[in-house]
């Protein structure tokens, strides 16, 4: 009898069987979003009909998301509303990026309607903007992952497209000035 109960409780607590809803997913992402992550960015520039690739890592810090590109050139930028180097148009995109990469799913849902599919360890989400300011620039977002966000694609109204591949990494092992952002 006890064994049976144990088996039941194991069955029900097994993540695979948990229902996939945005609240559960949000909790999981908030829990396990990495502090630091490698990225590989591919951008399709519609105007030029050209693709631009870059990679590096990002780190979540107190002052905001630090975006450190290593190739094609070394460049470091703090993604924060207070940073005067940010393009004005970027003020609309910033909360989206912070929400996705920081695991703040609830903040995202203020700007997007969410369509979830898959399971908790292998999910896909389609996000369509509901906020006028965001919709002026973003057409739609596609996000997928497991325990963390693994891939992210943003389609822009202008015809541009951005794809990010993410893989968690140990902050201490990062090169350069990662510990003194």
């Amino acid at each position: 009898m006890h064994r049976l109960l144990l088996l039941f409780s194991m069955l029900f607590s097994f993540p695979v069987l948990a229902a996939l809803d945005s609240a559960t997913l949000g909790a999981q992402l908030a829990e396990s979003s990495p502090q630091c992550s490698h990225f590989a960015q591919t951008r399709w520039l519609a105007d030029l009909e050209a693709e631009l690739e870059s990679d590096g890592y990002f780190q979540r810090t107190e002052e905001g998301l630090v975006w450190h590109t290593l190739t094609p050139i070394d460049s470091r930028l703090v993604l924060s509303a207070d940073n005067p180097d940010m393009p004005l148009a970027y003020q609309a995109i910033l909360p989206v990026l912070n929400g996705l990469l920081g695991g703040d799913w609830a903040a995202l849902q203020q700007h997007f309607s969410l369509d979830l599919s898959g399971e908790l360890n292998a999910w896909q989400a389609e996000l369509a903007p509901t906020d006028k300011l965001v919709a002026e620039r973003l057409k739609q977002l596609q996000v997928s992952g497991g325990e963390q966000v693994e891939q992210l694609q943003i389609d822009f109204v202008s015809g541009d497209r951005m794809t990010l591949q993410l893989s968690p990494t140990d902050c201490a092992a990062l090169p350069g000035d990662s510990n003194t952002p």
Partner: protein
Amino acid sequence: MTQRIWAWLWTLVLLACAALLFTQLRQADFWDTRITALLPASDQSSLLQQADQQLSAAFENQFVVLVGGPNAVQSAKVLQALLREANLSSAQTMLRPDKTLSPYRYGLLSDSLGSADNRQWLKRALTRLLLPGGSETLVQDPFGLLDSWLGERFNGALTLRDGIPTLRDEDQLWALVSGQVTGSPYQLATQQQLTASLAEFHAQHPQAQLLRSGLIFHAAAGAAQAQREMSSLGLASLLGLCLLFWWVFRRLRTLVQLLVPVACGLLLALPLTGLLFGGVNLLTLVFGVSIIGIAVDYALHLQCQRQLVAAQPSRQFWSALLLGLLSTLIAYLVQLITPMPGLRQMACFAALGLLGAWLTVRLWLARWPLSAHPATARLATTLAPVRLRSGQGWPWMLLALLLLAALVLIFSRLQFNNSLQQLNPSPAELIQEQQQVQTLLQQPSGSRYLLVRAADEQALLRRLEGLDPAFQRLKTANDLAAYQHPARHLPSLTRQQQAHDEVRERYSQLLPELRAASGLPERLQQQALTALDNAPLLQPAQWLESAEGAADAALWLGAQPDGVWVAVVALGDTTAAGAVALQQLAEADDVIYHDRVAALSAQLARLAHSMASWLAVAAVILSLLLCWRFRTAAWRALLPPLGAVLLTLGCLALTGGVGLFHLLGLLLVLGIGLDAGIFSAQEPDSDAAWLAISLSCASSLLAFGLLAFSATPALHFLGLTCLLGLAFTWALVPFARATRPDHSR
């Protein structure tokens, strides 16, 4: 018999007035609440008037609230929603002219980019290129020219968070909510809506800190204060008057008889003033009702005379009462010559009110049955010995010394003080909040400005551009808090063409490097240059007629009838050094410096000076009139009014100086002093007159002296002057009633 006909005629006049008033009160615009109506018909040039009007329209209907505290952005959203419900929100939550200016970006080169070197340009382009999700306009603007321009020239300090403009001041994050009043910020209903919205917001977010800026907040604070004081001071004064009259007369009928002339005076004054001036200002009503308080005098004198001397007063009594009316009318009608429409209205209102009250006393009151209580006579007997006897020398010495001291003070220390700041009824915290908002947002207040003239549109923009470095220097040195002029957002065509050339130069140098660093195709260079070559220049009309250019359109006076083009440079607060530097700029032939507050203060000063001189003229005329009437006894009539005015001025010389509202108070003192003096001269031995004079001083002290405790500066000055002046008037009457040596009791 003729008396009866006149009484009936008077009834008919009052009935007609009542009918007129009834129709007037049904008009929506009968009551005028604008404070500006009090101000002088402007003697400024039409150009300054046009600038003032245009600036007022642009600044007065706007307001801004900065929300701070925990969750400032979320709180600001709630406040925004509340304002939208109250129909007070502004369509423009934040100036974002990016769409309007997009085609013209190559002509709009910011100072920071203009002075940056090639290395910085390249770094900027690469940063934007590698930003996740940034740089949608790569071909159109690889170096972010427009962003730099917008950041430098429009709300530079503001950043959007969740669609709400915010700014950071040290550790504090402020979220900005802007609003707009449709109609006038002086409208009570609009003020109440705003106050209610803010109160609801406070209830929901007690922790949020608010900084308010905008005329409507000051107007609302003034109105709220006036209402509070009307209820507290007004009630205290009414209660005091009722108690005083009850203590003296102890008959309800007598109380009613004392009030009927005042009511009839109002009934005559209100509709006729409305007819003459096309409406009545609420301030006129407030001051005017107080001035009609003198009207109680006539009823008091008649009542005392009838109760204590004879039921049918003598001819001498009526002639004294008539002289009282005429002398007061002379003192008030002096105001009719002032250039302030508000004062003229008040003078007209007061004169009509006094006339109405006097006629009521003369035609009705004398015929009404008398009801007397013995207490009145007892009181008159108690009061009667308070007068100087012949042979009492020391009080005269004291009086002479005091008058001498007053004269010395007046000639050595008395100053006119007409600074508007002194009259500003706004609470200090509101003024401080407003200054903080203007500093944070870098907004000029619009209360001082430069007018710049030039031969044509483009020359005007070029002249503004030529002046700009001087403003920049002042701002950098913190001698000028903020400034704004149309050329800050709208460069001259010359300047735009220069920017085009510079951008083309940078493109040819930097685009190959950018391509090499990023690996972008060669097409980038050709496409970027094509976009640049095809770009138009921004024409003044396009910008000034756009929604985002509305603020600049307010500063653009355009072509004048004489063919000259004129624009305004709105200035923020300056230091003394800054003011000097700005005045030096205005020494050029094509620049005029104008400080609205200083100009208005100067106008008030001129007005106060002319009122003071007319007051002196009135005093001379009255002296002659009373000398002719009373001959050797004229000093009895002149001592209370003139002595009280001198002593009051002496006291005021010890305080901050004399302004317009002190002078208005002196007019009142003069009016009541004249009544007191005339009855003292007419019947120095009459106990009835002395009781009536005492009651008149006491009741006016209750009605106006209490205003000394008002927090509204204008009313405080008026009240303080009355408090001092009426006390002196009363104290001087025992001198005026001094017994004659030949007929001492």
